[in-house]
């Protein structure tokens, strides 16, 4: 299946977004350092496309998603949402100004167990965004909730049941219905399938794709599972230690990566063949602490191609041709291996 979503109009643009969490110590709770969870992230999403955001645990993917929705206040940077051909910088808005914009963007959470209030019925959970924004009342609201339940493949009669009566996959569908309630344009999917069984992962992914077609949704799909991301994304952004290191169309990322970190990630894609032995790029050392990240390129201490400049100068995320963005001093020179080189016999 080929994804050909995306009209070309930019829906969301994130510019130099930063989120530093203070580390406080001592009885006076003095700030002694900062965890640089998101450290200058820039990317854009076109209307109707799916941008996959991948990276290992703790690299700031989830924080990025939360900051875009202003569930966490950004330290600096811009989050520009296009709304009726107007550009709005969400990062600067006050809570009151932000509320109408919440209708445009919603979130689907990773954990289907803690994301539904156990003391509310499914109907109340899905209707909550409608109540908060006073869209639809009474019978009309009930009809809308039923419609949403049907859209995510659940029986509308489940309205009066409680979350504990449902399985993980069903709960995730309920979470999706809630996110759809206000007819948003952008949905941030924060690892929506990583807590589910593999068989159910496929169902939920397919549901997300069907809904995208039906409602013209735009997804920011945060995940760490490369095969899932490859399946659903039009473009992929790779994150490492609070920064985007590479962003390009899905096939380009997988066939001609331009950043050494992406190459290392691809070498870890599993191959369903027990006989197959391959060269895997094992990165040296651990992920550095985001409290005290390495100088220059964050990846240089673990990069097999690192040179002197890498520890001195921060590489810029720039277009190196055909919408392929990479932030590596040697992006143009390096000949890196694509996924096929790691997963096929020669």
């Amino acid at each position: 299946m080929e994804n050909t979503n995306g009209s070309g109009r930019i829906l969301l643009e994130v510019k130099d977004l930063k989120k530093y969490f203070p580390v406080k110590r001592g009885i006076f709770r003095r700030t002694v350092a900062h965890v640089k969870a998101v450290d200058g992230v820039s990317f854009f999403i076109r209307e109707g496309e799916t941008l996959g955001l991948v990276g290992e645990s703790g690299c700031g993917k989830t924080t990025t998603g939360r900051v875009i929705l202003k569930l966490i206040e950004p330290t600096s940077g811009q989050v520009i949402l296009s709304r009726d051909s107007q550009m709005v910088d969400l990062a600067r808005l006050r809570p009151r100004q932000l509320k109408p914009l919440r209708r445009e963007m919603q979130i689907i959470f990773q954990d289907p167990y803690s994301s539904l209030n156990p003391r509310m019925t499914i109907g109340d959970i899905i209707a909550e965004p409608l109540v908060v924004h006073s869209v639809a009342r009474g019978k009309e609201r009930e009809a809308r909730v039923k419609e949403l339940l049907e859209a995510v493949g659940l029986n509308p009669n489940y309205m009066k049941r409680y979350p504990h009566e449902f399985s993980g996959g069903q709960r995730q569908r309920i979470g999706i219905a809630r996110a759809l309630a206000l007819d948003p344009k952008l949905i941030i999917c924060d690892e929506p399938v990583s807590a589910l069984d593999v068989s159910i992962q496929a169902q939920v992914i397919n549901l997300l794709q069907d809904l995208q077609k039906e409602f013209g949704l735009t997804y920011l799909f945060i995940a760490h599972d490369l095969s899932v991301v490859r399946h659903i994304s039009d473009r992929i952004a790779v994150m490492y230690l609070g920064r985007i290191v590479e962003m390009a169309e899905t096939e380009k990322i997988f066939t001609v990566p331009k950043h050494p970190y992406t190459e290392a990630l691809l070498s870890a894609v599993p191959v369903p063949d027990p006989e197959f032995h391959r060269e895997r790029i094992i990165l040296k050392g651990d992920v550095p602490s985001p409290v005290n990240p390495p100088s220059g390129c964050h990846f240089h201490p673990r990069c097999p191609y690192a040179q002197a400049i890498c520890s001195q100068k921060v590489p810029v995320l720039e277009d190196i041709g055909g919408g392929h963005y990479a932030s590596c001093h040697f992006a143009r020179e390096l000949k890196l291996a694509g996924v096929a080189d790691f997963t096929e016999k020669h």
Partner: protein
Amino acid sequence: MKAQQVKTETALEPLAPPTKNQSFWADNLRQLWANTWSVLKQLFKNPLSASGFIILLGFTLVALLAPWLAPPPERHFNPYMIPQDGYSSTPHPPSVQHPLGTTQNQYDIFYGLIWGTRTAFIIGIIVIFFTLLVGIVIGAVSGYFGGWIDEILMRITEIFLAFPSLVATMVLVTILGRGLDKVMIAFIVFGWMAYARLIRGNVLQAKENTYVEAARAAGANAARILFRHVVPNAIFPVLVVASLDIGTVVLGAAALSFLGIGAPEGYADWGQMINYAHNWILGTNDDKLAYWYTIFFPGLTISLFVLGWNFIGDAFRDIFDPRLRGTR
């Protein structure tokens, strides 16, 4: 091409059959009944809690049936005022007209105890309701907003906790003046702190759930998030503790009445009954137990009531929080 990693066609998850045309209320009522029944069943497994339950059931019946058990005399304006049979100060032993005798100033002991049951329940329920309300609001706001709001509210809570509560209550009642309403106010003012602390802790835990974030993403304001999402998930242990404190509150109120700063003169109140008895505990030189009935019946009533709550309390704790089973 891309689809090779993810299997696209999988059988749909089996969905449970839908319930047919069952009304929301019928469903909820049945659920409530099922829960209550299972709690009752567990209560009766333990002889102590079963006897506690039976004792309290008895008191409830007495309170409800007071007008029939001890009908107020004709042209008696306030049924809570104990009728007096004469004005002699010496108590009279049980007789046909006065089944448990009369206490000082000829107040009928039986009548006072029956109507005093109502007073006890009224004090217990009203005081617990309002202390809970204050405690929940302060604790929930403190835990949810955190930061300096939390600091200020918790320091205030600690200041209130620093006073020995019975002494503080006594001082406040003395300032406000005699009367059961004043007693209840004093108990509320110095009674909410434990609930505030307990619910604050539970709120700190509940607010970390993702559904709170989901509500914020939907644009819900703080009040809605707090009272629709956080408090309902933090309140349950507090409710259990509070329901068990009814016995303690009644005992405290009786203590104030005993000291003569609680219920007004002649009001049906257990503490008051003991207060009337305190001059007659030791009878005459010939017969030390001459007036035994003045202290025995009111004392027995209060002891039974508090004992009932304590028996049931331990069982409640075991049922609702199995982790604490066998402690204390």
